[in-house]
């Protein structure tokens, strides 16, 4: 059984080699039969990797400790869901998931790329094949999940307790769907460079792939953030940790790509830039994989002491990034730049968006890599942490966010800022009101808090204004406006939703950063804590036994003004004996959009049952992740847009003859 999975993986490598070479040669020679090999080989490769992954999953579920990988990362007493998700809760398994998703995307192109020009499709599949070959080799040579252990141990070493959480089921797959989804954009870009031209099919295809990858990556990052928030026990939602940055950089670049792809699709301008961004975005995904997988982040020396994996991925990184950029340098001049536009136009706004987003990406990149550079060059260790990013990334985001509502309202080709500003008067006035109200009426509101809330309101109202104007609300009869509203293209809704979600996320961040309340104290059983007009009573500590852990549960009651308990919060300290590791399980109670967050510390030694408690009131915190869900919904709605579903450029002749619903 296990050997079948191993064998399937080797077969997948062979298929991947065929996929890398045959369609490419076919496209070069113009041989339709050779090009047609690409599709079936890609789909079969996906099936082989799928089989291999299934076999590994079964080994985990059955606790087959004859596999080194299962033995090192599983335990027979582990709850079933974590046996399942534990498949990718380790280096080898997560790399297998990586190539599984890569081959999945390749298979999607093969299956649905029927309307692509044959040579483009063949080249795209070949480039996907190169990536697949590189990573399958990496897995088989340095990180084989099917390595055996003789004799097989009776019991496993258990999964890291922090990972024994539902977060592991959601976060890595979503994140990889995003990371690896950008490989399709990359393959399209490289294929276009090989062919030396960017045609209409290219432009139409790249945007939905970018959008889909972006939706997944947004979800992956957001779920990771919430996971860290409740699991790590001090309620932070973003740490500017290098591993987080590794996923944030492709997101920023991908967001830029998303916007420039719109210009390319609609106006066939910015072609070369979009191509470069597609290459850069996936390069950053690869860089992220390298940073996390090689161990280089812990220390340059840790990397040097066990370099096999790191060097291998570094090789992949160099070949793909260097190769694609060299190809770009060689071929870009032969591509035609299209579309002329005035600086003040929708295109101009999107260029500005790209300028800020790519600068922000570079800022995160240099902040992440600088300590490595300094250590390698000067042998000194420095840290680049949150204060650096607050001082650099923050100021870059402010103008970008302030300009967001203008973008969708500007006309293509040549826009009129004054007219747009006039249309945004209401949103601006309301945002100003929010600033004043926050500053004057909320206790302890700083200038930052007031301006931040105002900016968030500006984003939300700006998005709504866009929808209202396009539906003609206020200009035409309500009935007509409603019909127009429902008839708006879905991409318009998508844009508005995504920008609105951004505003909500910002509001959540501002809420927590400026109005958070914290209490650190020793609580005796029965003691009541008042925090931000909530009354919390500590009921006592109670030892409980779980399936593969023991825990001390601290019970708390929320009291009504009359002193009656109406809700319970349970916060625990767990201990996993196999790994000898403690974890905290924060007690979280959601009240409206805000949360009360309770974390337990050590018990006092005087025998009174008192315990150190840290309690936070986190106003509007749920909006941080709620906003990202709205952004994802925006991306999803936009993907459902007619022109993307149909695939081919919509022929308008048929519909033009009928009176449009707006005119009736």
């Amino acid at each position, binding site marked *: 059984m296990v050997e079948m999975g191993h064998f399937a993986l080797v077969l997948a490598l062979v298929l991947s080699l065929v996929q890398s070479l045959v369609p490419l040669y076919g496209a070069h020679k113009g041989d339709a039969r050779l090009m047609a090999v690409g599709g079936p080989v890609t789909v079969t490769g996906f099936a082989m990797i799928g089989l291999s992954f299934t076999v590994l999953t079964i080994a985990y579920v059955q606790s087959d400790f004859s596999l080194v990988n299962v033995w090192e990362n599983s335990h027979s007493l582990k709850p079933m869901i974590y046996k399942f998700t534990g498949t990718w809760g380790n280096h080898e398994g997560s790399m297998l998931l990586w190539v599984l998703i890569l081959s999945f995307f390749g298979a999607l192109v093969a299956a649905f790329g029927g309307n692509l020009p044959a040579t483009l499709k063949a080249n795209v599949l070949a480039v996907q094949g190169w990536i697949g070959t590189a990573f399958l080799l990496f897995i088989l040579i340095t990180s084989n999940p099917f390595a055996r252990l003789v004799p097989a141990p009776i019991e496993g070493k258990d999964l890291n307790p922090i990972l024994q959480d539902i977060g592991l089921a959601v976060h890595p797959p979503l994140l990889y769907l995003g990371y690896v989804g950008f490989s399709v954009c990359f393959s399209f870009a490289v294929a276009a460079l090989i062919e030396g031209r960017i045609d209409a099919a290219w432009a139409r295809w790249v945007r939905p792939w970018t959008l889909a990858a972006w939706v997944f990556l947004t979800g992956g990052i957001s779920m990771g953030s919430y*996971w860290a928030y409740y699991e790590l026990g001090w309620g932070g939602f973003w740490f500017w940790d290098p591993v987080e940055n590794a996923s944030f950089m492709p997101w920023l670049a991908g967001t830029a790509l998303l916007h420039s792809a719109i210009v390319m699709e609609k106006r066939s301008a910015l072609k070369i830039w979009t191509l470069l961004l597609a290459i850069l975005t996936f390069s950053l995904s690869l860089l*992220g994989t390298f940073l996390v997988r090689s161990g280089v982040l*812990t220390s340059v020396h840790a990397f040097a002491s*066990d370099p096999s994996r790191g060097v291998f991925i570094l090789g992949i990184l160099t070949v793909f990034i260097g190769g694609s950029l060299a190809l770009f340098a060689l071929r870009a001049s032969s591509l035609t730049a299209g579309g002329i536009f005035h600086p003040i136009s929708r295109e101009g706004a999107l260029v500005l968006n790209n300028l800020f987003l790519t600068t922000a990406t570079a*800022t995160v990149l240099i902040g992440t890599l600088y300590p490595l550079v300094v250590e390698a060059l000067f042998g000194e260790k420095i*840290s680049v942490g949150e204060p650096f990013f607050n001082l650099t990334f923050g100021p870059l985001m402010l103008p970008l966010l302030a300009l967001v509502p203008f973008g969708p309202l500007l006309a293509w080709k040549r826009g009129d800022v004054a007219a747009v500003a006039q249309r945004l008067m209401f949103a601006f006035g309301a945002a100003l009101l929010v600033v004043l109200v926050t500053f004057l009426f909320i206790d302890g509101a700083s200038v930052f808090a007031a301006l931040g809330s105002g900016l968030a309101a500006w984003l939300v109202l700006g998005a709504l204004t866009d929808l209202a104007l396009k539906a003609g609300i206020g200009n035409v009869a309500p009935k007509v406006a409603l019909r127009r509203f429902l008839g708006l293209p879905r991409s318009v809704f998508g844009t508005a939703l995504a920008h609105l979600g951004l505003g909500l996320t910002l509001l959540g961040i501002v809420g927590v950063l400026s109005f958070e309340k914290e209490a650190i104290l020793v609580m005796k059983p029965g003691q009541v804590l008042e925090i931000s007009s909530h009354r919390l009573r500590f009921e006592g500590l109670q030892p409980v036994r779980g399936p593969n852990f023991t825990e001390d549960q601290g019970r708390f009651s929320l009291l009504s003004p009359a002193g009656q308990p109406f809700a319970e919060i349970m916060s625990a300290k767990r201990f996993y004996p196999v790994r000898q590791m403690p974890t905290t399980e924060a007690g979280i109670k959601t009240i409206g959009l805000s949360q009360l967050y309770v974390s337990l510390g050590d018990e006092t030694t005087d025998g009174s049952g008192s315990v150190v408690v840290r309690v936070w009131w986190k106003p509007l915190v749920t909006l941080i992740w709620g906003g990202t869900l709205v952004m994802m919904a925006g991306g999803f709605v936009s993907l459902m847009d007619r022109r993307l579903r149909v695939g081919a450029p919509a022929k308008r002749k048929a519909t033009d003859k009928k009176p449009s619903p707006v005119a009736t």
Partner: protein
Amino acid sequence: MKTKLPAIAGFLAAFLVAGTALAVKPSEMLADPKLEARARLLSEELRCMVCQNQSIDESDAELAADLRVLLRERLVAGDSDEQVMDYIVSRYGEFVLLKPQFNLRNALLWATPLLLLLGGGTFVLLSARSRRRQEPAALSKDEQEALDAILRKDA
């Protein structure tokens, strides 16, 4: 050190070194709320040396606790914020600072965002200007006459 954890979850585990639960303990806190607030702000900018990318304010490691106590001792002794930071850097090195110093070695780090924004902005402006120059020139007299002739024919 081999990473055995999934890419993204790796950093979660990195914090494990720091143990779990609470960072600042009630017993460490200063009686003077102003001084304590200063201590909290300063400790957010100091790195826990044995953790990955975690400030001493958030960390539960013993070394972080030692640093928190040391920091508060200096504050009680009447040091200014800068004096406290200088003292801690002199003992633990620049690695302890989460905000890198403004010095020549870090110039590239601090300057990159601004340089890129200015450079990119200039490039965009220049290319917009050159693009405007490419805009089609007005029709010559002959062309205009030819066009008028065609239009007349249509009418």
